[in-house]
């Protein structure tokens, strides 16, 4: 096996000059960026710092001590949000897949199912989540049907699942339909039934393609778990609200916001990683 020629290659003077030139340009850009950043930030600091309401704002929004003291209670309440999030996500994945598959069924015999699925998706993407929560959390128990759940925990999960399934189903359907039809042809040609083709060939591919938008919907779902507070349950945002109504400082909301961001960051980074692996991100920068 001969060594590749590249091992003995040395850059020519021309190439070295090019490199030197590009480096100097880069250095200049970085310096400009740095200086302008400092100038802008400095201007903001000066401007905000001398605004009339700044000390009060600082005391209300950035009182680190008060925020830190309230953190414990919020973390405790966070467990409720996490439980709702996990259970809802699983339900949404399952039902979303079912609805998506129903919508992709072909043939006149399946028309009623397709229509039902379409009506469901249109309905629950149209109704604001807030209304769904009111209807489900307060409306269903008001029917006094004994075997239906009554607690706001369960009903909030139901409300979130109903709404988010509609969105996720559409995303999954887009994924399924984006798989090249020749994949279906190849699968059917081997003798696989429609169901088998969907299960082993089309759906796995379709799902992989739409993982980023799918995870996007889940990040949204994580935040909407705070709406369980409408049903009276004490979760993070309500805890922050209570803390704020005690000492009138908005820093508690800031803390709650940071908690939610921390919660969603793993998911968003995972989304980015998957997107890169799938080749969504376009190639390197042009010089």
């Amino acid at each position, binding site marked *: 096996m001969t060594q590749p020629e590249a091992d003995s290659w040395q850059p020519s003077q021309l190439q070295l000059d090019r490199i030197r030139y590009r480096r100097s340009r880069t250095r200049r850009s970085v310096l400009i960026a740095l200086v302008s950043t400092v100038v802008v930030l400095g201007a903001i600091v000066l401007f905000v710092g001398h605004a009339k309401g700044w000390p009060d704002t600082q005391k209300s929004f950035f009182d680190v001590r008060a925020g830190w003291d309230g953190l414990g209670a919020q973390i405790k309440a966070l467990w409720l949000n996490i439980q709702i999030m996990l259970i809802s996500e699983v339900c949404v994945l399952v039902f979303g897949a079912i609805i998506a598959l129903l919508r992709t069924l072909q043939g006149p015999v399946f028309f009623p199912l397709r229509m039902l699925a379409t009506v469901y998706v249109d309905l629950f993407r149209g109704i604001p989540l807030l209304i769904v929560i009111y209807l489900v959390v307060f409306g269903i128990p008001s029917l006094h049907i004994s075997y239906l759940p009554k607690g706001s925990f369960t009903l909030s999960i139901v409300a979130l699942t109903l709404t988010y399934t509609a969105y996720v189903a559409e995303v999954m359907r887009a994924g399924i339909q984006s798989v090249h039809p*020749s994949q279906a*042809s*190849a699968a059917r040609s*081997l*003798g696989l039934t429609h169901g*088998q083709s969907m299960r082993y060939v089309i759906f796995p591919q379709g799902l992989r393609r739409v993982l980023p938008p799918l995870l996007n919907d889940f990040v949204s779902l994580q935040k909407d778990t705070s709406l369980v507070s409408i049903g009276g349950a004490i979760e993070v945002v309500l805890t922050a609200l209570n803390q704020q109504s005690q000492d009138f400082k908005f820093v508690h909301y800031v803390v709650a916001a940071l908690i939610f961001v921390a919660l969603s960051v793993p998911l968003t980074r995972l989304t980015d990683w998957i997107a890169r692996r799938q080749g969504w991100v376009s190639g390197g920068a042009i010089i």
Partner: protein
Amino acid sequence: MTSLTKNRPLLSIRDLRKAYGSNVVLNGLSLDAAEHSCTALIGASGSGKSTLLRCINLLEVVDDGVVELDGRDITDPRVNANEVRTKVGIVFQAYNLFPHLRVLDNVTLAPRKVHKVPKAQAEDEALAMLDRVGLRDKANARPDDLSGGQQQRVAIARALVTKPRVMLFDEVTSALDPELVGEVLELIRELSADGMTMLLATHEMSFARQVADRVCFLDGGRVLEHGTPEQVFGDPQQPRTRQFLRRITDAGRL
């Protein structure tokens, strides 16, 4: 009885009609393929070669006409299409393999799920088939890691492993780089020599000349001319056949 079955063609197509909206692609096409024969289908784009193959393996529903396999009318709506498709293997021009599965899983999918072959046995048979096409060492690779020619050979292995009665090849080398075409054609030649009945839609005229027992020229949705390669390529009767072949020659592909 034996002589009858011996003389009966494996695949018999009569008066096939298929239209897409107002576009009539197959217009009363008739064709017979004897067992163990290799039939080459040639013709211009849009002459119906792909559609014909897709009608044979029931990916398309015919508008009229009959397709008989082993004497059985497979275009009858009461026939179980999935079952028929295991007897008709097809290899397409592109996007053949399932990209999310390993090569080995690509080949074992149908045996395991359709024929309910146990996993170990399916994998053994798959490896044997991959060996047959010269790609046993790629069993654990992903389709994307293979060259176009290798992918097509895996696709052929995948179709063969269900032990079909007839193999259909739909322009399987048209999307390949020229240097990869040879390995696929070589495999097809071997299969034909082993006795596989096949229909081959192709632009590779020289290959058709060497391997096919019969050549059918499709034009206007029917078989305009057919015969042995010597007859069709050497002495075409129909003017349109001559015109087509002349164009092919001019393009340097004969």
